[in-house]
């Protein structure tokens, strides 16, 4: 196998549209990082660190993509094609080297080559670890890896937080990277030695579990996830007050996933882990005393209010929109049953009830979260301007969700390149917003960063309105809302 084929191997399994999205995403990340490394002073506080995080995120995604080479390697093993099996491993190594060579000049440009280099390697290792390590290890391992960097937990144990300026940073990150690399290599070797069958799903790499489920079931990620989840962890559905005449509850059961009404016990089980994370973050902080207390509390509240809740709202929005998209792409799924289920109304009434359910559920989650976030920013910064800015940035998420709902139901989905542009714009806004909250505060509110935020938000709102109007108009011309995307 020649060098070109080896380098092209990870892309061979991707659909053309995904390849295009990947190219756009890479250009946006690499271009954005380069622009930030070369920024003029005053545009953004610690622009190099934001650029490094952006690059690390890209490398993590690259790690996920390259991990998919495990699949042709396993297929080659099944077909007794040892040369192809070796070629997959070789392609992985070659591509990793190529990626590292590509980002090396940027590491030098950052002005902090040691720290930036380590963070980028951590990003790449995280991508590989998520995809290749056994599914059961992932969550505890991620928590364990975060511990040295977790400020409030460190405080609880009287550690000093290991930040980039800490002399131990290089050693700790190197250890983490080496451990992740060794773990991935062990998993790869073990699978190719013993095959897939003798290894249960808990000990199989996540990427393989997804692949196997995708072959068995639909392309709906939530259904795939449900396949992997033990029965006792699956949500227990509240079936009371569902049926003819009870539209929101009925439609939420039919739509499933994040819309499902679940029992109190089931909700408690699902909220246990996030609740624990919040507890172990805040309890030590609230219990602490001294000069650092106020600063720590402020920083943590801002981090949660700005980035944390913002990302949560974004994640919920993306999950709901993706779920709706997948439901509407599968004509044989819930869509066919909903379309033919009596008692849900006809024509416009059917559409109204569905929209009421979707938007009602969206408001029930998003409005309180935005309220908490804005309030927290106001309390922590004593700045109404910053709170308003936070409201404007977070308001983009429900605006985009309304556009996504209308686009899906109206069967006018966005082309993949537009989705990629929106994703990059959203990511840029969140990074800039967080930077403003965390470092800049009121001082830079009138600067170019705030201008960028406002212009970006304006663009985002305009696009959302345009897409929502386009989708709504198409939906109004449909006989009913349960027609599949084709």
């Amino acid at each position, binding site marked *: 196998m020649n060098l070109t084929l080896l380098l092209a191997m990870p892309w061979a399994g991707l659909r053309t549209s995904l390849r295009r999205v990947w190219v756009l995403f890479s250009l946006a990340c690499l271009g954005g990082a380069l622009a930030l490394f070369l920024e003029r002073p005053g545009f953004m506080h610690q622009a190099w660190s934001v650029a490094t995080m952006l690059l690390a995120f890209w490398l993590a995604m690259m790690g996920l993509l390259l991990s998919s080479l495990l699949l042709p390697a396993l297929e080659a093993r099944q077909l007794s094609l040892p040369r192809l099996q070796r070629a997959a491993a070789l392609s992985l190594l070659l591509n990793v080297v190529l990626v590292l060579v590509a980002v090396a000049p940027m590491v030098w440009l950052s002005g902090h080559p040691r720290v930036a280099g380590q963070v980028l390697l951590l990003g790449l290792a995280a991508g590989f670890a998520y995809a290749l390590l056994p599914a059961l290890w992932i969550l505890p391992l991620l928590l364990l890896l975060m511990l040295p960097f977790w400020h409030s937990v460190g405080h609880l144990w009287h550690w000093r937080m290991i930040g980039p300026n800490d002399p131990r940073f290089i050693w700790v990150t190197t250890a983490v990277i080496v451990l992740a690399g060794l773990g991935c290599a062990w998993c790869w070797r073990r699978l190719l030695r013993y095959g897939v069958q003798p290894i249960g799903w808990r000990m199989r790499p996540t990427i393989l579990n997804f692949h196997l489920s995708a072959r068995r079931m639909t392309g709906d990620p939530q259904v795939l996830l*449900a396949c992997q989840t033990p029965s006792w962890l699956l949500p227990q559905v509240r079936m009371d007050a569902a049926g003819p005449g009870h539209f929101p509850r009925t439609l939420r059961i039919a739509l499933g996933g994040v819309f499902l009404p679940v029992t109190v016990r089931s909700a408690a089980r699902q909220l246990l882990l996030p609740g624990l994370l919040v507890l172990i973050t805040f309890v030590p902080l609230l219990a602490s005393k001294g000069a650092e207390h106020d600063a720590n509390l402020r920083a943590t509240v801002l981090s949660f209010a700005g980035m944390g809740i913002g990302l949560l709202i974004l994640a919920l929005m993306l999950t709901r929109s993706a779920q709706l998209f997948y439901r509407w792409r599968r004509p044989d799924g819930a869509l066919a049953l909903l379309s033919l289920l009596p008692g849900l109304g006809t024509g416009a009434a059917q559409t109204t009830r569905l929209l009421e359910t979707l938007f009602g559920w969206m408001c029930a989650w998003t409005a309180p979260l935005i309220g908490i976030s804005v309030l927290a920013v106001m309390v922590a910064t004593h700045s109404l301007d910053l709170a308003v800015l936070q409201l404007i940035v977070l308001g983009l998420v429900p605006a985009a969700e309304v556009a996504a709902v209308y686009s899906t139901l109206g069967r006018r989905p966005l082309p993949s390149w537009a989705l990629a542009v929106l994703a990059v714009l959203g990511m840029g806004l969140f990074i800039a917003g967080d930077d403003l909250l965390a470092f800049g505060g009121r001082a830079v509110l009138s600067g170019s960063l705030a201008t960028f935020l406002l212009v970006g938000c304006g663009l985002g709102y305009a696009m959302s309105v345009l897409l929502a109007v386009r989708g709504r108009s198409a939906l109004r011309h449909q006989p009913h809302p349960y027609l599949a995307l084709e």
Partner: protein
Amino acid sequence: MAESSAAYPPIMVRGLRHSYEAHPALRGVDLQVRQGTVLGLIGRNGAGKSTLIRALLGLLMPEAGSAWVLGEPALQLTDRVKERLAYVPQQPEAFPWLTAEQMLRFVGQFFPRWDASFAKDTLSRWSIPSTRPLVKLSPGERQRVELIRALASRPEVLVLDEPAAALDPVARRDLLREVALRAGEDGCTVIFSSHIVSDLERVASQVALMHEGQLRLHCELDAAKERYARLWLPAQFTAVAPAAALSRRAQADGSLTLVVERDAGGRWPEVVQMAGARLDALGLEDLFVEIAA
């Protein structure tokens, strides 16, 4: 039941056309199904069977043509018709987050004629774990749950898109028995698409053959064997081959194989009488292969 048998056929389709990304899936399909008919819809993969079924149930908006179910336009069905209609898709994926028992209870509330005892008994008779989420069941078990869901609503029109694909022979036999019972005793109209010709031969009263988006044949099952035959013409007679053949295949030696049909008077085309021409009777499977190959 009397209402549906009155003025309109349970299923009627006129000039349906539809394409996916410029690839035509339906090219002007006309179909009418009488009450109490079990119509076996047969065709190769990609022939347009599922698209036709979705269009006639109003699950997709065709580019041209229209479909009616129990007298109502398929895209604007009212509850009155939906209560009398059941559909089992090719790959049942609905409500995987519910258990079989929850799903049947949930759906049953919407159908006034829901037969809860049938649902319960059949779940138990078919040994389906009723408390396990559907996502954890095998494809065959999920297909059977969907069949129970469809049959328990006591439909007047039952549409099954390759329902036997994931079933083992015993389950298939059970399904066919149920379909025959519903059609025979309740007068239920059934559209049943399948690749398995022997299944269709067991239960279908009519057969419709789809090929490349067109309905190439639609007749009573018993009549199919009488009405169609394979005609082989030696090379010297190919010029006089009938133009209205259902299929036409040139052989390497210059001879021609055609599927021909009797005319309204029950006569074969005249060319059959020519010396050297050969007419072979066809079973349903042979007929399918001749037309669709």
